[in-house]
């Protein structure tokens, strides 16, 4: 999946001359923590985060004589280009969601501007967007039941499992696979569109698979 599918299109941007005060108001109003800074032709020149602003102004009261009015005056008179980060970590339109996740994690950042070939900002992808994608992958919120099945780590195991489920004419709404606790085994998490899991559970066990008892994992 490419980032384009998950990014927020047409994100808020601002010019380098915008005051820190204005930038702060924009962040508050839109409940965002970062704003890409672009030149007049839309090319990315920097990014400003709420932390950059906080790092610039000492909290009122720390320095004698530094009042709230003075702090506001300072923010109004300082353009964002003076404090923004110029070396921006970005994603491109051909990056995948995995690339974006890797970048967000490795650089410990909250969001990535997405740029086109000309370095123009076309979107932004945040940790929240990644979480939304993950929720969709797990099938959360889709009416269904879940089966956790341990299968041997070899070709055809999942196919056999799917075959059993499809013999009950039941739709599979999501499949996740991860390594199991011991090597040589995988755990398949399937969401299936039925309330009637009893017979399917039974058939899976009769085929020799282990069904995970979720309650056993509570104390681990």
């Amino acid at each position: 999946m490419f980032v384009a599918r998950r990014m927020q299109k047409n994100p808020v941007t601002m010019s380098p001359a915008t005051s820190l005060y204005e930038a702060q108001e924009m962040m508050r109003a839109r409940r965002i923590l970062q704003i890409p800074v672009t030149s007049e032709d839309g090319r990315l020149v920097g990014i400003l985060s709420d932390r950059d602003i906080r790092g610039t102004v000492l909290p009122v009261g720390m320095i004698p004589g530094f009042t709230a009015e003075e702090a506001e005056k300072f923010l109004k008179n300082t353009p964002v280009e003076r404090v923004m980060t110029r070396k921006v970590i970005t994603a491109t339109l051909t990056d995948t969601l995995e690339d974006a996740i890797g970048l967000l994690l490795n650089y410990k950042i909250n969001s990535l501007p997405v740029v086109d070939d000309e370095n123009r900002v076309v979107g932004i992808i945040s940790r929240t967007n990644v979480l939304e994608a993950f929720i969709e992958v797990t099938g959360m919120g889709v009416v269904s039941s879940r089966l956790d099945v341990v299968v041997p780590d070899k070709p055809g195991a999942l196919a056999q499992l799917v075959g059993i489920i499809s013999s009950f004419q039941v739709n599979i709404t999501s499949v996740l696979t991860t390594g199991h606790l011991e090597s040589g085994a995988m755990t398949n998490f399937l969401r299936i569109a039925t309330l009637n899991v009893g017979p399917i559970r039974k058939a899976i066990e009769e085929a020799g698979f282990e069904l995970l008892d979720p309650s056993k994992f509570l104390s681990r």
Partner: protein
Amino acid sequence: MKRLGIVYHPDYLLHVPPFEHPESPERLQAVMERLEKAKLLEKTAQITPEFADEGDVLAVHDRKYLDQLEKACRRGDMTLDAGDTYLCRHSYNISLLSAGGAIAGAKAVAEGSLDRVFCAIRPPGHHASRDVGMGFCLLNNVAVAAKYLQARFDVGKILIVDWDVHHGNGTQSVFLEDPSVFFFSVHEHPTFIYPGTGRRWEIGKGKGEGATLNAPMAPGSGDDEYRVVFDQVLTPAVERFRPEFVLVSAGFDAHADDPLADIRLSYEGYRYMTRAVIGLAERFCGGKLVSVLEGGYEISSLTNCIEIHVREMLEE
């Protein structure tokens, strides 16, 4: 001894699955045989319900859905959509009779002719929402009864306690924005079981915010965990809400022996929950309590649980 009513109609057995299915007529047959054998029928009033009035059903469901359901049954469709909610030629009528059963129970208690009622009805209802049936449910019986009480008996605030092991997603959706109906559902955690909703942050919307309360239970939970939820979560919420009438979506599939779920309630757990809702009804509602059957698929634990449930409500 309380004046307890039992709602039942032999035609409930006419809703028959076209293939092997856990929600079968045998469930209700076994329940009635047990109540008879335990001499509970002779100590209770028998209520024979009628079909629900269309107007009362339309307070919950869309006209379009009712038409669709009726047509599907007439056409001979085997299921609703592609799911496991089966239909037969009688299903539409019997679902009206099932909703009518919940109404009959509510009416008897609201009028004061009985203290409490248990409705031995099927098909179940709590997964059915305004415009779609699912999870073996066609019409939302308990929701229809709640709206009926408000429309015909001027009841203001109603508490619905849903202890079926599955989240009562249909009932929740009907009353999500309604501050006059407090919906409480305790169920196995949605990550592990159908329908996959009923998380603790689902608390109602708009004017109804705060009038929905979900208690998802970890797989393997039993009597102790449920007791804590009833005492420390439900009771304080009800003290704030102060209902005038209590309806119970009584599913018995949270029993340890039920094959559809991983909750391990014992018979004592069901006794405890029954006493808890009786206690709440006595404290706030002049005792007005109607319990409506939902799920419960293992015949032996289903019949044992219901005998206990009915005995507790009867207070012999």
